[in-house]
């Protein structure tokens, strides 16, 4: 089955990395095909950036998302740009503190940034928390796969922090 996952947030939140990790999990550890793409502006920080994965059991022809079934929204600007006319049957995870609006579709609120800052000590891992929640809530890849992909992708020395963030994400995602 073709899944289209769209991530959006402001530059610096790591939404591109999220999609890269998810794609990696699917392609290398999930026995699926995955294509990761993005749209980003010139801003290194700030501005709305978007990143997406197409995940499928068959080889992927058209590589871009057309109608995502899963949204991960980490900023209000991101919501305004990508999240405002989501189809009813989609699923959206939002960073509950940074996104004020809520969509028509099923919505899972994850206080990822607060969690990252207050319980994990580094805002920077908010995206990993979201990723954990996403996987737990949707099963689009297995928890094991995402764990291995996270470990592949994060800087040496931060594995522990990121794993903790991911697991915290699993918990938050499962709860919902």
């Amino acid at each position, binding site marked *: 089955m073709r899944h289209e996952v769209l991530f959006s947030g402001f530059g610096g939140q790591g939404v591109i990395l999220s999609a890269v990790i998810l794609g990696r999990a699917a392609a290398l550890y999930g026995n699926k095909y995955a294509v990761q793409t993005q749209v980003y502006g*010139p801003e*290194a920080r700030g501005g709305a950036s978007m990143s997406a994965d197409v995940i499928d059991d068959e080889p992927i022809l058209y590589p871009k998302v057309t109608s995502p079934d899963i949204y991960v929204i980490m900023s209000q600007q991101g919501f305004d740009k990508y999240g405002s006319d989501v189809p009813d049957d989609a699923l959206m995870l939002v960073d509950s503190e940074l996104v004020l609006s809520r969509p028509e579709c099923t919505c899972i609120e994850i206080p990822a940034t607060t969690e990252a800052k207050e319980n994990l000590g580094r805002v920077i891992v908010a995206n990993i928390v979201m990723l954990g929640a996403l996987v737990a809530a949707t099963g689009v890849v297995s928890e094991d796969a995402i764990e291995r992909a996270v470990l592949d992708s994060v800087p040496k020395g931060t594995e522990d922090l990121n794993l903790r963030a991911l697991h915290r994400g699993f918990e938050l995602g499962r709860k919902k």
Partner: protein
Amino acid sequence: MSTRVFEKWYREDRLPHIFCTGCGNGTVMNCAIKAVDTMQWEIDDTIFISGIGCSSRAPGYITTDSLHTTHGRALTFATGVKMANPDLNVVVFTGDGDLSAIGGNHFIHACRRNIDMTVICMNNMIYGMTGGQGSPCTPVGKISTTTPYGATEPTFDLAGLAVAAGANHVARWTSYHTKELTKAIETGLSTEGLSFIEAMVQCPTAYGRRNKLRTVTDMVEWMRTHSILLQKARRMEAEGKSIPEDFFTVGEFIHRQRPAMGVKR
């Protein structure tokens, strides 16, 4: 009534600008605007020109006519503007890459011709806009995405080059030294011929992050503590002492009256 920084010079409808949190470029803009304002230049007679880079985005936030050109070529456009209409006041914003990598030739020629304008280079020792590649000003040993094992190429002394090439006024300060920088720009604006102001700035995103200056304040602090007054450096040199490796000099390098081009009629 509120008092923003020289409000009339900024395009309110475009702020906040795209610079990262704590990027020194915004501070340098403040200093330049303050200097221009002090000169009592008119908005409608003043043109800001730039190339491509984070730093080169600055003119887009200023209310005057402005020209955001191609990478490295700002000074050629500025030369056209100023030589075609010397009555306009021309200020160029540029970055270390824009000015001294791809734009090096126009830099030395503008200095040689000594065209009557002020060139402000925001030197963050890196290519910021493209995400942190080494520039001709990246210090030896520092990490960038294209110098993953530490930079090995000798670097330019931009101020020294400007002096050798012929500019009438050359100074270097940092975004920490807002007062001195403002004053140096002001002197530049009032000098006939080309004035070159090198403003060292922090780039937390593309430079600091990779070079153990994690926070904005770390980088500003580094600039504060590693800058050494030109006079002092010269004194030390005279005394045979060498200036420590990662220190840089600040101050006025030259102020002279070589013949200039494009001076107001």
